[in-house]
């Protein structure tokens, strides 16, 4: 998994590429630190280049969501497709974490 953060006038867009799985735990936490450091109001995770997410990856989204709620920014998911989309649906995480419109 790799990520790139764009800051568009206070709105963050995190572009992920590659798989988001158990082994990316540290990278994901570093990403969250980067995001927290930018004190934005909204942060969108763009998942359109992510092929798969496992249960640990979903757990990381939940950690991000918790961090967003605590720090007062809004987390949104965008672009989920294929396996990622079906995982979000299967676990109803799409009810817990908002989708970007």
């Amino acid at each position, binding site marked *: 998994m790799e990520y790139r953060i764009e800051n568009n006038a206070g709105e963050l867009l995190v572009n992920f590429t590659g798989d988001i799985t158990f082994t990316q735990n540290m990278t994901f936490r570093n990403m969250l630190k980067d995001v927290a450091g930018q004190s934005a109001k909204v942060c969108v995770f763009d998942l359109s280049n992510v092929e*798969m997410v496992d*249960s640990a990856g979903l*757990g*990381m989204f939940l950690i991000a969501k918790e961090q967003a709620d605590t720090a007062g920014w809004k987390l949104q998911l965008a672009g989920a497709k294929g*396996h990622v989309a079906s995982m979000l649906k*299967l*676990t*109803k995480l799409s009810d*817990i974490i908002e989708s970007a419109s």
Partner: protein
Amino acid sequence: MDSGNSLTKDNLHKAILGANILVVDDMQLMRKMIGMCLERAGYTNLSYAEDGDDALRIIEEDMPDLVILDLNMPRMSGYEVCKALRASPKTESLPILVQSASETAEERVEVFAAGATDFVSKPINQPELMARVQMHLENRFMIRNLSDFHGHMQRELSMAKEMQHALLPEQSLISKIEQDAGVVIEAEYQASFELGGDLWGMWPVDEQSTGLFVLDISGHGVGASLNTFRVQATMGRYKHLYHDPAAFLKSLNDDLVESFPLGQFGTMFYAVINFETGDVTYAGAGAPRPFIIGDDNIRTLDSSGTPIGIIASATYENLTDQLHKGESLFCYSDVLVETPFSGGDMLGEDGLRDLVMEHRKNGEASSLVSNILTTFFAEIQTSLPDDLTAVAFHRIKAKELEA
């Protein structure tokens, strides 16, 4: 040295000062000189040998931590001592610091080929000798500490693994349910590491029905496995809800949501199967969608739902289906569909459905799981990346049952 203690620089230094060092030299003056040098540096546990034979005898009686060995000695030379020590499993990794007066490149090669760990030349430069002694003793103590720790962890993990396997249904329960319900049960459980975050289980609900669950804790390894114990213990508190999958999952979630760490959760599927009528009532908490497999069709059960342990407000819904005679109910953990095959692509749910259909058509219906797993393990490139559970209830046709 205590295997449970981690080595700090300070206690490592203390430990090596108590190390048993054997000085082997045929010249008394040399023995005395090296010994004094070691004593001055604080080493307290020294022994001496006059020649090779003497050295091997002393080593046999009381294993040193380091040998400082002269090369040119009567009877048995330093080379022979090296070779003899390396030939024995007990002393194959004993550090041997060779000291010699001759200084040719060939000799150094020969010394190392004979098994010496390191080399100092005579006349001995005392600070150099002390630095080398210290380095080899530190290495030895650190390696010993690590391998003690490794052995200790290995034993702990094996014990924990046995405990975790004891959570799975016993063969006697499986056989009883097979007999009472007229089913063949296939179940495979493998942790990717010693301990895993998967669990499955079953229990009689009433005279006609059996409850079956599969659970997959997010992540794997020790942390995930501890959560399987937590969930297992909690499930026992809701026996009165075994007949009602949605209520059972809701109670389990309500109970566990506070104690599950952030970012960890369990995906689950729980079904109650009535083997008289074939009625299946089930509820899902985000587990991979189980299949009901017939001769020419596969139905997918909707196991979507909020995994256990995330939010207190999660609710679950009972859904129904039928497990007809001759059909199989197949539940599996996500590793089966998420592990890349040799072609680079993961199977996915569609791929698994195709594979299941292929094996159903070409193989024995009641060995479906083992046939699928044979293909799976032949295809995956790596070792198992996550814990694997695959369970099937094969409902036998009446005529097969009689036969």
